[in-house]
């Protein structure tokens, strides 16, 4: 009997060691990138999300619990002149070692879960973003149109005394908006008709009161106290390709022309890769076997000092996000596409860790004064994109199931998950992982509830 008790105790302690060590941590399969110093934990290379199962149960339970308690409070039931809480967002972050948690201080969000009230009229995606002064232009707009659209925003911010140095603010905004316009012209010139195509570009800028641009810690991070201005370009696709207005090349500076040409090439290649990665994923699974649909892919793009455009995250420059949408009339990428082997540029801040890794992995790079350019192999980028899509699909599925299970236990809620946004970084070698708390995300994936 004694021997038996000993064996049981040993078994239990072994089990507890394994469970406790990994509980609340994402498997290293998902997050360990070669250059961040974390080796893949051989005991935990599974693509399952079981080790973070409790976290998702508690996250869904605490969010829905709080929203239902608020809703059931008699004081809050009485809506004042029809006003009611219609949406809420839960932000989730990933620590250096893969620990998952609710974002409670500064840092980058790996996942954002949007909750919306059931049976209400669908809340448009844009309405669930925070209200930032936004200037929107389309295919028909010229550089002068953009300047004219910006004028009332400038006047409003100056009049409100949020901006103290109007001259500096105008100078910086003009320079950023000229670059933005060049990016839009590049996007307008993309001729590919693949299923996933760039449909929108957005540039979020943060200004200090003195009018200078404030670099954001991460693409998704809110900067306290900064004045935010958003520029947006929406591509209106004509059914007849000849009907799409040609890009206005004449008004662009030499720098603008380089941005336009680089953007055109990069977006064509990314359109190819996003479509191919999604098709590969679809061949293995049905990504839409739950209530959610894969809606948007966002990519951070920048122009480096070397004169190249690439997927980018580096300081001292404005980084717009290009959004790829699925088009029903799109085609599959052809193996005959000559551009299929062209590498994808990755531009990142100079970092001694990066160079150490690049040397050991024999990666070629162009080192600039502040940032470096790495050439990513297309196959690796595709594999990385597929992995990110798989992670987004699996987390969306898990969150959805947790909410369903809660309902099955009799805890009916008036709230549903309306949207899930996840953020990722690229490794220098082309691999992709969810953005950790200190990272600058380069890739965003959006899943939207079909029943909202």
């Amino acid at each position, binding site marked *: 009997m004694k021997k038996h008790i000993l064996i049981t105790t040993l078994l239990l302690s072994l089990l507890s060691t394994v469970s406790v060590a990994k509980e609340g941590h994402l498997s290293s399969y998902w997050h360990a990138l070669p250059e961040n110093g974390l080796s893949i934990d051989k005991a935990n290379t599974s693509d399952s999300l079981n080790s973070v199962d409790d976290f998702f149960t508690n996250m869904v339970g605490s969010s829905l619990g709080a929203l239902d308690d608020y809703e059931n409070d008699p004081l809050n039931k009485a809506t004042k002149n029809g006003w009611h809480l219609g949406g809420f967002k839960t932000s989730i972050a990933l620590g250096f070692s893969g620990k998952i948690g609710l974002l409670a201080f500064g840092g980058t969000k790996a996942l954002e879960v949007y909750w919306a009230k059931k049976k209400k009229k669908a809340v448009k995606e844009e309405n*669930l973003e925070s209200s930032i002064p936004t200037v929107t232009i389309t295919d028909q707009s010229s550089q002068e149109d953009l300047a004219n659209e910006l004028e009332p925003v400038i006047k409003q911010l100056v009049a409100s005394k949020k901006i103290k140095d109007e001259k500096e603010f105008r100078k910086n905004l003009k320079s950023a908006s000229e670059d933005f316009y060049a990016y839009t012209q590049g996007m307008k010139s993309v001729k590919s008709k693949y299923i996933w195509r760039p449909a929108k570009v957005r540039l979020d800028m943060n200004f200090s009161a003195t009018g200078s641009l404030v670099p954001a810690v991460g693409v998704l991070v809110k900067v306290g106290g900064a004045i935010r201005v958003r520029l947006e370009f929406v591509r209106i696709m004509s059914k007849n390709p000849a009907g799409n207005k040609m890009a206005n090349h004449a008004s662009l500076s030499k720098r603008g022309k380089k941005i336009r040409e680089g953007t055109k090439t990069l977006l064509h290649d990314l359109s190819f890769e996003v479509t191919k990665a999604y098709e590969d994923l679809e061949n293995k699974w049905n990504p839409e076997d739950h209530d959610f649909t894969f809606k948007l892919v966002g990519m951070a793009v920048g122009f480096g000092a070397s004169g190249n455009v690439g997927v980018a995250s580096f300081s001292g420059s404005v980084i717009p996000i290009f959004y790829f949408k699925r088009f029903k009339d799109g085609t599959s990428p052809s193996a005959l596409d000559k551009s299929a082997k062209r590498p994808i540029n990755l531009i990142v801040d100079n970092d001694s860790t990066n160079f150490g890794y690049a040397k050991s992995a024999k990666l070629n790079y162009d080192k600039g004064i502040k940032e470096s350019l790495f050439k990513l192999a297309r196959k690796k980028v595709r594999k990385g994109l597929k992995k990110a899509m798989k992670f987004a699909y699996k987390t969306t599925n898990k969150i959805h199931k947790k909410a369903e299970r809660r309902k099955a236990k009799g805890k009916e809620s008036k709230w549903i998950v309306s949207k899930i946004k996840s953020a990722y970084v690229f490794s220098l070698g082309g691999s992709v992982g969810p953005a950790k708390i200190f990272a600058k995300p380069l890739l965003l994936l959006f899943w939207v509830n079909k029943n909202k």
Partner: protein
Amino acid sequence: MKKLFLTLILLTMVTPVFASDNIALIGLDEAGEEIVIPMKSKRWSKRVTKVLNKVGGEVLPAIKNQYRSEQHFEFKQFDIGLAVKMQVGIGELVKATINPYFDLYFMK
């Protein structure tokens, strides 16, 4: 056989103990260091309800009053981004201040 049965029962009894109802609060402090604070998820839920009550009961009416004088426009939605300072206990005596950010969307 009896012993194996006993082992299985013991294991089944102990396994639920591993299921944690703690939720980690995670973030970077001012020095850029990562901090993780565990909290009971029910306690976190209560804290969030408190924030929602505060905003719904006090902040929203104040915003509405401020914009009441506007004759030409009618507001259909208020998006409120709220950085809240909260004290949470880590252990018996030590307390930490966290600074979670809430996005709330009020609609008509």
